[in-house]
């Protein structure tokens, strides 16, 4: 009998496995938690009991032939893709597998500069060359946007030998490019179309949301089910459609993915897929309702700007993901990261991130009215207590990079460490970014300019969590000799 979306093959196999009371003379050595009772009591007995190794009745992630294969087929059906891979090394692994499957050393790949670090990391590893398309910037909000079709067309014309085009669908802030047209352009120029859908799981199930990658005809998409789809952290799907060989992609995944795939992560993907299939429409309606309500209320407070679909210009903002609750704070005299810190330190509210001018809260069907009201009330208090004149605030976020060397070449060059304020004009040998959102300010191979140094100093002053450099304090930076 064919499985339906009501089934969850990995979940059912694990339940059966528990019932059989199998003697555990294999790894993991905690033996269902008996070896570490404190851990078992903390995480719960079931959690430790289903933390098992691959075995015949439970299949094997590296070479699925039974329950994992069935679960992957159900996932593919749910996401209307030709094939879905279960990924347990984070969406980072899914993004890298997309790039490794489409590019070899020296191949070009067209992408916006506001990609997640995982994409540029992939270039460091495989030696592909990025062709950056400048994402537009919204001057008022200071956020990078999507790629306009014209800019992608231009990049393709200038680089007809590029192998693939990578698109954020959507960006962290919920901005979408015209994915359908970009996919058409890529295909008509014999390039693969890849989508980083780390923040786009809900596009496949919600109503009135932007177009998903498989719907647009993209060849591959990395979908973080754990971000908005309800599975455990670090679990994702890599979707394949179009002209991609499933077997080759699996080989590429197996180059770097663990051979001890976690059943906790896999069962969470299996049950998340089932839940999304059966209840997704309803859940994302609730999400949109919460986010829309919060936007309306936050805009009534004054000073804040919770932005939404009114930004859409059918160019570098082709569509807006209205489940995203992004709020511009700079007009109130506060950097986003300052509001982010106050919310956590004073109000016990943890949001997703704060950058120079904005904050982002992730809302989902798992929220209740209470969380939404607390967030709105806390913002109203922060305005009352900390709001000030916004003059003197840094107002520009996106800085167009000058790529001097390919990321791999720069990363593996001979490098020296210099004080960051003496590095102007040099070629950067490592990453510098605020985390989150994890979009590099500097990537290996890019020219360090005074504009970038000012920006880094400002981010540090405002308390952004800076990462990427070998020097944990970011007082020194590695430059190419």
């Amino acid at each position, binding site marked *: 009998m064919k499985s339906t979306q009501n089934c969850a093959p990995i979940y059912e196999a694990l339940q059966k496995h528990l019932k059989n009371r199998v003697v555990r003379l294999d790894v993991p050595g905690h033996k269902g938690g008996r070896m570490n009772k404190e851990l078992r009591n903390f995480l719960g007995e079931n959690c430790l009991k289903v933390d098992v190794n691959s075995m015949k009745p439970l299949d094997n992630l590296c070479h699925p032939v039974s329950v994992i294969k069935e679960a992957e087929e159900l996932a593919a059906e749910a996401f209307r893709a030709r094939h879905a891979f279960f990924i347990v090394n984070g969406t980072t692994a899914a993004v890298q597998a997309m790039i490794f499957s489409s590019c070899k050393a020296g191949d070009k790949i067209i992408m916006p500069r506001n990609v997640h670090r995982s994409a540029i990391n992939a270039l460091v590893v495989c030696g592909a060359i990025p062709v950056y398309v400048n994402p537009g910037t919204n001057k008022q909000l200071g956020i990078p946007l999507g790629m306009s079709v014209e800019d992608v067309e231009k990049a393709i014309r200038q680089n007809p030998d590029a192998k693939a085009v990578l698109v954020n669908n959507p960006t962290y802030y919920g901005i979408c490019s015209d994915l359908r047209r970009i996919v058409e352009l890529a295909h008509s120029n014999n390039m693969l179309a890849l989508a980083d859908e780390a923040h786009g799981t809900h596009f496949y199930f919600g109503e009135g949301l932007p177009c998903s990658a498989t719907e647009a005809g993209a060849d591959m998409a990395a979908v973080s089910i754990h971000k908005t789809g309800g599975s455990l952290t670090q679990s994702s799907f890599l979707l394949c459609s179009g002209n991609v060989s499933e077997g080759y992609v699996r080989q590429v995944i197996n180059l770097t993915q663990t051979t001890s795939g976690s059943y906790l992560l896999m069962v969470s993907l299996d049950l998340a897929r089932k839940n999304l299939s059966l209840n997704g429409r309803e859940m994302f309606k609730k999400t949109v309702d919460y986010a829309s309500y919060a936007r309306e209320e936050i805009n009534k407070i004054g000073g804040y700007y919770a932005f939404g679909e009114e930004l859409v210009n059918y160019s570098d903002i082709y569509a807006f993901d209205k489940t995203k609750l992004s709020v511009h704070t700079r007009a109130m005299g506060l950097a986003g990261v300052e509001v982010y810190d106050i919310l956590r330190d*004073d109000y016990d509210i943890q949001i997703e991130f704060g950058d120079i001018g904005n904050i982002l809260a992730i809302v989902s069907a798992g929220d209740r009215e*209470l969380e939404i*009201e607390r967030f*709105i*009330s*806390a913002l*109203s*208090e922060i305005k*009352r*207590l900390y709001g000030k004149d916004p003059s003197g605030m840094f107002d520009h976020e996106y800085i167009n990079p000058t790529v001097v060397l390919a990321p791999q070449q720069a990363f593996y060059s001979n490098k020296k460490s210099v004080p960051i304020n003496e590095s102007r004009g040099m070629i950067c040998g490592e990453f510098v970014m605020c985390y989150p959102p994890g979009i590099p300010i500097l990537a290996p191979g890019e020219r360090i300019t005074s504009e970038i140094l000012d920006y880094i100093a400002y981010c540090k002053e405002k308390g952004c969590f800076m990462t990427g450099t070998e020097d944990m304090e970011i007082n020194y930076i590695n430059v190419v000799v």
Partner: protein
Amino acid sequence: MELWFTEKHTDDVNFTIKVKKQLYSAKSYYQQIDVLDTYEFGRTLVLDGFIMLTEKDEYIYHEMVTHVPMAVNPDIKSVLVIGAGDGGTIRELTRYATIENIDMVEIDGQVVEVCKEYLPQTACRFGDPRVHLYIEDGLKFVRRKSGEYDLIIVDSTDPFGPGEGLFTKEFYGNCFKALTDSGILINQHESTYYDSYVDMVKRTHKRIGSAFPVCMVYQSHIPTYPSGHWLFGFAAKNLHPVYDLKAEKWESLNLKTRYYNTELHKGCFALPNYVKEVLADE
């Protein structure tokens, strides 16, 4: 057959009373609502398994949350009551002819309806023309107000349940904004006797103190609440609960009370050492 109701006061302590009859039992959108008729305590309102009030001792709670602030500032004209679906706080407030407006915000309309039907002892003054009932989330209601009330009384359930938002820093800050310059905030402050409540009392006190210059705690004896020793918070922008007490003025009103008097008012701010230690501990 004997029927007994048990409330868990801690994991290891139960409080049990003999029930004559269960008068009402239903689940609202927010919580489980039960009304019991009991031999010792009369009619009893139970929410999510916790006793909210009994006819026998409700007067202590309702007198202490109303007459304490009214005796400090007898000029109070406009009052906001949050929670209090049973109507007991409203009943006490409507005894003051000088109060012009009472807004009451209760999240669960079903509690009000049930109390009107089964607890007329407390739910008896909803018809007073000065009383305006809003079925809404208190946190949301107060966020939109600025300088409107002389007194806010937070008559909430425990911090785990529909009342959770009423124990937050943002809520107390919103209350500060909603109050006039001589404003007073009174809140139900739980108890420190059992360890499981201590953290919440501490945090609540700290959160109120971050919003209000005057932030004090007073006590009373409520037999049907866990440990029987119960605390309330008195926070104000500039009025001190004891130094600013207008005892003579309050007494001239000739309000008959069963628990409250102005001597007790002065005394109830004197706290046992174990409570003082909890409140002082950062």
